[in-house]
């Protein structure tokens, strides 16, 4: 088990139970500061949730100062490449005036006291303004809800803007104030005369200088400041700097441990195949050949899937391939791609002019449209998309003696732990969940299907089992970005200004504002949805509903611009008049791209603008359509997430989101035939490769340091429409259905 107990060498480790104790991380031997609630909290409904007064002084411990002056930041989020460990530690360390070279990072264990209450706050009460996290009633209430929902969750581009801004910085500032107070008391000088820098406490008058650690214990005795003072941007020393990511060294020498690398003594390996049609069950399996194959230990019909357990994974997979399985008939067997889109069309037709669920409405769109001088109508479609994380889904589980241990990489470790407990028929407390690095998350690893399957297999065998999905299984059994259809009607007045905007689209998952355009100044708008069953399982896919609505909205804006006889950039400038922050982002991207300058024949530029997850992003794509298929040569990005904590890390997120979105725009399509997903591996669900990589140039804007936006997702929604708008500019062909590989541009 030792291999999964520690992360990569150097400054970072995983906080498993053993490491927790072994490292001596206990309140009382060191200063530990968190930001939620303490025992003795006067709020009645909180007290039952607090630890029973043992060593834990505080819940949600986000920082520790120990005897050798090391500051440890405890990160209640998981690392999937987005650089969250580093960015959140930067926020804490800066407020604390810690020496960056003496900062360690630990991932919080999957315990309920680590739920991200600040995420809960933004999910549940997006409009609620709470100035201080220590405001007990509100924070406590949200903590309770967040615990109930298991929100130790990494997603929604929330880590920096919610946990970082509200918790990490507050914890760092509170710890600093407590250390200063302890020093002031010891030195008998006013706290106001004491300064801090590089993990040292300094008093200029007396020349005294001591490390944080000297006062760690005394500081723990100080009362927790009610509202620690946060720095203003001119005093930031670590925030805003491109600090090297802590997780990278272990990722270049093979030592980083991902879920699939779990190493449990005596473990065996399982390969699985689930019923190819959602809801079908295994009717019979013929394992005549499989049971004779080398290494095979067990063959399991689990009802909804078949598993082979063997000494090695390859043996298990070979044996599984030889099993002839029959599945039950379901209603879904007859579903094809075309039938599904026809079903969408029927629902949209039935909703007509006034049906469906109204999401937002302002002004009278009917009147606006009737009075419009120019009318524009269009329908767009997007397919299902798989996540295709490089690390196929996997999980290692061991159920024995009323206990369960589970190893995987999950975006919501508390949910994973609960899922394992339910699958094993055990209490949450009897399950230990060990989280590892995620070989790509993108929303896929917020689901727990893999955890449940592995736990069920392990329960049946009694020994530890590492279940690994083949790529084929990973592709065919995903929780997909839904396919969708969206219809628009837009009206322009005699000056070519947009005056009405009506949209109806299929389904709405999250975020709820994805289909809306509040930033565009259009006199009347109405946005509706119809719910249509899709059969395939829905899963959040990087930028979630923004991934399709960014394409729908920004394509239609471009069509309106064209109908108005205006340039796409100029048309958007009109729509954003009066919003200087938005305009600056749009203008920056246009300027970088040399918008308006001449391009060669069959080359084109396209612009798109999508605020999402609290960040504002504009992109200009350049395409070369002279060859048989579209080639995206360059992407210019301007992004304003409020304040950029780690510029290089944020830039990397923009690059990454562009590739993820561009891959989908060019190739991404999961299709259904006879109820089954038709794609299986990278040959029929292709990925963008290095030879297709456009140059990406990123400009970052710090537009409002008090309201931070996310980084992981906002770079994605604009890329597809920027590219299709560029294709229109180059060829005159308007793409209304993705992926581009369906179209011929010859």
């Amino acid at each position, binding site marked *: 088990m030792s*291999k999964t107990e520690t992360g990569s060498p150097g400054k970072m480790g995983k906080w498993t139970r053993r490491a927790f104790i072994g490292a001596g991380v206990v309140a009382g031997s060191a200063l530990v500061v968190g930001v939620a609630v303490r025992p003795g909290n006067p709020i009645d409904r909180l007290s039952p949730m607090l630890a029973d007064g043992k060593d834990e002084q505080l819940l949600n411990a986000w920082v520790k100062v120990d005897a050798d002056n090391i500051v440890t930041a405890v990160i209640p989020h998981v690392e*999937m*490449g*987005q650089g969250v460990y580093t960015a959140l530690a930067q926020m804490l360390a800066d407020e604390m005036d810690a020496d960056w070279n003496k900062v360690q990072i630990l991932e919080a264990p999957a315990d309920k006291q680590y739920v991200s209450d600040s995420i809960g706050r933004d999910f549940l009460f997006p409009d609620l303004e709470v100035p201080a996290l220590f405001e007990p009633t509100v924070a406590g209430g949200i903590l309770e809800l967040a615990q109930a929902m298991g929100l130790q969750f990494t997603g929604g581009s929330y880590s920096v803007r919610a946990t970082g801004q509200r918790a990490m910085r507050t914890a760092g500032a509170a710890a600093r104030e407590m250390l200063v107070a302890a020093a002031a008391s010891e030195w008998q000088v006013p706290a106001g005369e004491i300064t801090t820098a590089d993990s040292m406490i300094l008093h200029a008058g007396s020349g005294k200088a001591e490390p944080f650690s000297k006062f760690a214990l005394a500081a723990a005795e100080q009362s927790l400041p009610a509202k620690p003072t946060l720095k203003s941007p001119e005093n930031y020393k670590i925030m805003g700097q491109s600090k*090297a990511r802590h997780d*990278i*060294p272990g*990722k*270049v*020498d*093979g*030592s*980083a*441990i*991902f879920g*699939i*690398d779990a*190493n449990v003594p005596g473990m065996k390996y399982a390969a699985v195949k689930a019923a190819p049609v959602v809801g079908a069950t295994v009717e019979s399996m013929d394992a005549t050949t499989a049971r004779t194959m*080398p*290494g095979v230990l067990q063959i399991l019909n689990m009802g909804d899937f078949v598993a082979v357990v063997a000494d*090695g*994974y*390859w*043996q298990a*997979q070979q044996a599984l391939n030889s099993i002839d399985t029959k599945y039950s008939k379901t209603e879904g067997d007859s579903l094809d791609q075309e039938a599904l889109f026809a079903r969408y069309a029927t629902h949209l037709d039935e909703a007509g002019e006034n049906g469906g669920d109204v999401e937002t409405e302002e002004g009278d769109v009917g009147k606006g449209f009737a009075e419009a001088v120019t009318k524009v109508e269009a329908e767009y479609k997007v397919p299902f998309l798989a996540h*295709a*994380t*490089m*690390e*196929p889904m996997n999980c290692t589980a061991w159920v024995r003696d009323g206990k369960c241990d589970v190893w995987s990489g999950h975006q919501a470790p508390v949910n994973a732990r609960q899922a394992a407990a339910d699958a094993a028929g055990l209490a949450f407390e009897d399950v230990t969940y060990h989280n590892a*690095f*995620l*070989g*790509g*998350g*993108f929303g896929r690893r917020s689901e727990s299907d893999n955890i449940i399957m592995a736990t069920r297999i392990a329960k049946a065998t009694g020994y530890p089992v590492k279940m*690994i999905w*083949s*790529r084929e299984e990973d592709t065919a059994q995903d929780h997909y970005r839904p396919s969708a259809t969206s219809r628009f009607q837009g009206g322009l007045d005699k000056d070519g200004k947009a005056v009405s905007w009506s949209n109806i689209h299929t389904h709405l998952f999250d975020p709820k504002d994805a289909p809306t355009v509040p930033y565009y100044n259009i006199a009347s708008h109405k946005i509706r949805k119809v719910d249509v069953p899709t059969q395939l399982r829905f899963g959040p896919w990087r930028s979630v509903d923004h991934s399709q609505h960014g394409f729908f909205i920004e394509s239609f804006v471009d069509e309106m611009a064209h109908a108005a006889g205006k340039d796409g950039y100029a048309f958007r400038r009109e729509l954003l008049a009066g919003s200087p922050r938005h305009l600056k982002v749009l203008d920056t991207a246009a300027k970088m791209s040399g918008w308006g300058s001449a391009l060669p024949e069959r080359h084109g530029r396209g612009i798109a603008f999508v605020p999402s997850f609290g960040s504002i992003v504009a992109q200009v794509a350049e395409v070369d359509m002279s060859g048989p298929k579209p080639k995206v040569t360059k992407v210019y990005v301007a992004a304003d997430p409020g304040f950029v904590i780690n510029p*290089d*890390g944020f830039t*990397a997120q923009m*690059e*990454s*989101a*562009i*590739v*993820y979105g561009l*891959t989908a725009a060019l190739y991404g399509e999961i299709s259904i035939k006879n109820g089954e997903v038709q794609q299986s*591996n*990278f*040959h029929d669900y292709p*990925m*963008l*490769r*290095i*030879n297709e*990589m456009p*140059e*990406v140039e990123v400009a970052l804007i710090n537009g409002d340091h008090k309201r931070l936006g996310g980084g992981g997702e906002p770079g994605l929604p604009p890329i597809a429409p920027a590219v299709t708008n560029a294709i229109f500019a180059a060829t005159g062909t308007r793409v209304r259905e993705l992926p581009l590989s369906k179209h011929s541009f010859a």
Partner: protein
Amino acid sequence: MIKLNVNGQTREVDVDPATPILWVVRENLEMTGTKFGCGIAQCGACTVHLDGKPVRSCSTPISAADGKAIATIEGIAGEDGTLHRVQQAWIEAQVPQCGYCQSGQIMSATALLQKNPNPTDAQIDAAMAGNVCRCGMYGRIRAAIKAAAGQPATGEKAV
């Protein structure tokens, strides 16, 4: 028993000769730096060197390694632990995000530079197109290879 030379060390394993190198390395030798991605040589996450040439270990049976030297990501740093110049360039350019594909990327890149010390963009594309990075760090990969190409060889041992 099959006798292997892995990262300069002799190892013996008792496996079916048809077993792909990937699973022997990961499960029998417990070296998990080499990753499983697709199983059909489409993604490159499993890339190792066989006598210095990059191969997709998910689709190459262990019998093909008979009498040849296997090198994995764990074996490319110097004896003293000094990182290979490609690894150093990877850190310098902050290439990895999720990091899962990076062992394979680095093995393809080191093989490229061994064969071609100063690759052009087109040569980098040709050598690296078999390695998928879902986090899309291709621009950084290209930059890191170029940076490593311009660096004196450090921390390298013959593989």
